[in-house]
């Protein structure tokens, strides 16, 4: 197809077909595009932020390995976004260079071939002149150009591509989430980590590109490395009260503490602040404060910080329809007043909004809210076509089709009638003999195969 639709297979005809594997692993396996805002799951697979969020809202499993996973566990895959941006920057140049190289090589080969032919012709002439022409055929065979299409080789290359990302990633995720297991006391380190996360969304605010690479990256590393108690991810569980990930063995005690703290009048870290009470615990992912004090009081979010919070998914059965409507209206998303839309539709819309919103926060170039709302509308419009469970070709004209295939349909109807009658007969026969023979069963079976179109008429 067009050259403006880049694809890993572009590399196949080049002298370095292995680049196909490289590019394949730089692409999201869900959308097959280069990663946008890559996120790594707790099992170590990387996807675009929006892709994985959508997948997880359909089923809470990693699309690659089917291990259960949740959105709050997703982590930025920083190195991949760097790889993608540097690869896409050089891609065109690299491809052009390689194609040119290939052309040059071919031209050289052709020249060589011509030279060889000429040489052969000369030897033949010499031989003929010496009267010895016995092994001419043999020479002809040797002269067969060593040209061999390089097609099949890449299949083996194609097998390995996705591994690379899986090796690198798990370490990150365990590191970050193991931090969360460190109890409240170390909340300062947790906070500093997340502050970094937040800084990511709009790197250009504080750093120019170069600054960002030189100063921000190392900072991330030192911040993330601090407490290294190796804890298995699978043993983590979100506290039902404050939403922090805790080790399963300590979760009960922790939850009790949280509950007690909530009951007592003094404000406590988990429950004190701005997050509205209807929202789920996930909202309370720590936000950055350089002046966080050991007292574990968290000052309320500023407006700017609130803008950058990941939205929680909430719980469908705990949310009332009226609240849902209010929420959507508050955001500025279209929803009808009369209550025509079912709760299910509204819920799906809110979920998709949350996916789009959160993925936008992960992006390097965040869009405006209006643009996001438009995105949501486009997405919904696309989904609406899907309403009938069987998708039909839009250009399909029922009338024309049925008139042009009328004969076949009639023949089918006739044969179906016949087979139905036969079936009946057989059934009666079978009832009479009480023992259906296999061959009649086969007959009806075969007749049955052709019959589906009958429905069409």
């Amino acid at each position: 197809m067009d050259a403006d639709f880049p694809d890993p297979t572009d590399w196949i005809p080049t002298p370095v077909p292995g680049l196909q594997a490289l590019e394949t692993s730089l692409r999201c396996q869900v959308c097959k595009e280069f990663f946008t805002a890559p996120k790594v799951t707790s099992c170590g697979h990387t996807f675009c932020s929006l892709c994985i969020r959508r997948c997880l809202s359909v089923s809470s499993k990693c699309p690659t390995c089917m291990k259960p996973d949740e959105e709050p566990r997703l982590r930025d895959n920083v190195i991949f976004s760097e790889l993608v941006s540097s690869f896409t920057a050089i891609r065109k140049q690299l491809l052009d260079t390689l194609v040119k190289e290939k052309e040059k090589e071919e031209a050289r080969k052709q020249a060589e071939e011509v030279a060889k032919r000429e040489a052969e012709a000369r030897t033949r002439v010499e031989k003929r002149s010496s009267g010895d022409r016995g092994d001419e055929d043999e020479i002809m065979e040797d002269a067969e150009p060593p040209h061999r299409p390089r097609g099949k080789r890449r299949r083996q290359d194609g097998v390995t591509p996705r591994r690379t990302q899986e090796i690198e990633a798990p370490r990150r995720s365990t590191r970050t989430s193991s931090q969360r297991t460190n109890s409240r006391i170390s909340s300062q380190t947790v906070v500093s980590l997340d502050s970094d996360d937040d800084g990511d969304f709009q790197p250009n605010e504080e750093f120019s590109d170069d600054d960002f690479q030189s100063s921000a990256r190392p900072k991330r590393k030192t911040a993330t490395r601090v407490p290294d108690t190796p804890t298995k991810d699978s043993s983590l569980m979100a506290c039902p009260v404050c939403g922090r990930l805790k080790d399963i063995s300590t979760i009960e005690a922790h939850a009790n503490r949280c509950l007690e703290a909530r009951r007592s009048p003094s404000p406590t870290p988990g429950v004190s602040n701005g997050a509205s009470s209807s929202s789920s615990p996930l909202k309370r992912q720590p936000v950055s404060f350089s002046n966080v004090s050991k007292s574990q009081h968290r000052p309320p979010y500023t407006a700017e910080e609130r803008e950058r919070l990941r939205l929680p998914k909430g719980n469908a059965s705990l949310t009332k329809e009226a609240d849902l409507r209010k929420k959507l209206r508050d955001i500025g998303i279209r929803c009808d007043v009369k209550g025509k839309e079912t709760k299910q539709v509204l819920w799906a819309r809110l979920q998709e909004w949350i996916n789009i919103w959160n993925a936008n926060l992960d992006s390097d170039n965040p869009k405006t809210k209006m643009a996001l709302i438009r995105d949501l509308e486009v997405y919904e419009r696309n989904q609406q076509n899907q309403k009938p469970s069987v998708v039909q070709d839009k250009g399909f004209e029922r009338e024309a089709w049925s008139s042009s295939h009328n004969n076949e349909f009639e023949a089918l109807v006739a044969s179906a009638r016949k087979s139905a009658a036969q079936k009946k007969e057989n059934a009666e026969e079978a009832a009479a003999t009480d023992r259906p023979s296999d061959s009649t069963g086969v007959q009806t079976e075969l007749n049955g195969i052709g019959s589906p179109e009958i429905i069409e008429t």
Partner: protein
Amino acid sequence: MAAKAVRRLLSEYRELINNETDGIYAGPISEDNFMLWECLIAGPPDTPFEGGMYSATLTFPDDYPLSPPTLKFTCDILHPNVYPDGTVCISILHPPGDDPNMYESASERWSPIQSVEKVLLSVMSMLAEPNDESGANVDASKMFREDREQYEKIVRRCARKTVGL
């Protein structure tokens, strides 16, 4: 049409063209509708299906690849895992959570990282090794189990028919 799904299908189509797999041919029927594909699957060798060329249509939902496509044979085929109307019933085409026969494990179900190529390869191996425990076509499963000779005879006849013999 869903732009995202179309882009992904375009990508898959390119890969299929440039990276041909033996015995599998697939592509959109018309450029206007990328959500409806036609495909040809060669009968796997050393099976009664050998020599047959089975035509089928692949229909993609608008939220592809979140939901799986459906595959429907448009030629006569007798197989325990193909409904009499031609619809194929294999685990890779079922979204996780929806198990019509209460049989499959989640790991072999549809996931967004699967692709047309993988689906067609699975269908090919399904042809070679029918699963008569979760039959879609009960008569075919019964025949497969009890009267293998007859089953193979019919299958061979269908295979010849698919290539117009």
